[in-house]
């Protein structure tokens, strides 16, 4: 689909971007798993990470290094940034957040796809809802969207201007990947349904605070408002995971990994 999408709509910005992100993800996963765990891991997760990076990273023209570096950082984070044997960050989220913080002049995130056309948006949202539902993470998606809308209304009351300006971000293509496939990642969400709902609400709250910082132009937080949702998740997600792993560590059955048993659990 990506190959056809690139040929028809230039959705990636070049096959070299896809090849770089996918290639580095797969090679890094294979080498690190073989080196650190003694056998080559299943590469499906690295494949999905590579695809998500090639879709989400939109760098300055003619540079490929963000895809290579992002892919390496994403996969390496799974092996280095761990607690009790579990990685704390969603790999794509970690890599993109880090790139945005240290190389904002060269790297941006996806803002346009398929012409941001309403019909295409509706199709993607429909597929996303079905997939999230089958993966048993629909409550995460719906909680986030509901919180986003509530906080958007509150922000609008504070900063004024058109309400649609506050609601608009969630209609964009980056959010489609974020709400259906990133914030719902079974490997990096907490173990209980209630916990996941609370965590994703906090992500939306932090995102909203960052957005207010953007509206009031607080210089200290300027690096964060290049992509408030991705950076909010990058800060809230691992703290929640760490607390959850710590809380469940003493239990005889250990930590139950939330919705990870779902047959179509996918993440970016």
């Amino acid at each position, binding site marked *: 689909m990506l190959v056809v999408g690139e040929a028809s709509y230039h959705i990636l910005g070049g096959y070299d971007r896809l090849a770089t992100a996918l290639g580095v993800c797969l090679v890094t996963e294979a080498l690190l798993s073989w080196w650190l765990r003694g056998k080559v891991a299943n590469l499906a997760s690295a494949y999905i990470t590579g695809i998500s990076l090639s879709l989400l990273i939109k760098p*300055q*023209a*003619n540079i490929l290094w963000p895809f290579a570096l992002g892919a390496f950082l994403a996969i390496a984070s799974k092996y280095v940034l761990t607690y009790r044997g579990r990685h704390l960050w969603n790999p794509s989220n970690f890599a993109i957040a880090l790139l945005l913080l240290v190389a904002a002049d060269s790297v941006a995130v*996806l*803002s*346009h796809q398929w*012409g*941001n*056309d*309403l019909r295409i*948006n509706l199709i993607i949202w429909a597929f996303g809802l079905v997939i999230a539902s089958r993966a048993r993470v629909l409550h995460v998606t719906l909680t986030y969207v509901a919180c986003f809308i509530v906080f958007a209304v509150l922000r609008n009351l504070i900063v004024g*201007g*058109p309400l*649609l*300006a*506050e609601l*608009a*971000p969630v*209609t*964009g*293509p*980056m959010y489609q990947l974020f709400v259906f496939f990133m914030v719902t990642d079974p490997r990096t969400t907490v173990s209980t349904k209630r916990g996941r709902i609370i965590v994703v609400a906090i992500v939306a709250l932090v995102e909203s605070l960052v*957005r207010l910082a*953007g*509206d009031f*132009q607080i210089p200290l937080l300027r690096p964060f*408002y*290049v992509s408030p949702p991705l950076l909010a998740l990058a800060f809230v997600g691992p703290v929640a995971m760490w607390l959850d792993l710590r809380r469940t560590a003493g239990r005889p059955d250990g930590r139950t990994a939330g919705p990870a048993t779902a047959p179509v659990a996918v993440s970016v």
Partner: protein
Amino acid sequence: MADAGWAWGAQFGDLNNDGLLDLVIANGFISGDSTKSYWYAMSKIAGAQGNIFEDAKNWPAIGRASLSGYERSRVLLNKGNGEFVDVAESAGVTDRMDGRSVVMVDLFNRGMLDVVIANEKNRPVVYKNVATGGHWLELTLVGTRSNRSAIGTEVTVELGTTRQRQVVDGGSGFCSQNDRRLHFGLGNNLLGAVTIRWPSGTQQVVNGLTIDQLHVITEPAR
């Protein structure tokens, strides 16, 4: 070249007469209050669903904020190996006005292209070119059977082993039109044949033109 700022008008021309086309890019969009940026406010709607983005009533008010304001223009010198280097600062192109259109013209008839930039809500700026070196050739074309301004005429100049082609145009870039005289930087190359293809279809080949001169060439009768 990808990092050229907001980038409005731009023109190619041989600024140092080395036989390679250089590029000047006028820059800056809205220079308002330098302490207030519209960038974040715009980002809220820039990635939104198309119908929302397309309707300006959904945009946050810009007020007195800046958006890509106070950007400097770019003067990109052609290195001849596929690379351009920005020499704006050293060339003295340092204004921070909101540039819109840019033209290149030999204002002082020295065989050297000068640069004029028109700015939004501000005075225009003339940058007099003080580069040295390199030979040149300028052509004023007068149409007879074609239009008198010779707009649309293609001129190909042989420079040693290479060729350079320019067209007399009626407008190039944003709200701008270069001097209708064509300017060719020759570097240290030998000038060969000059082939002129007039809009009427007539092809004229001129040999032996003296370099470092302006030549007036009239379209031949049928």
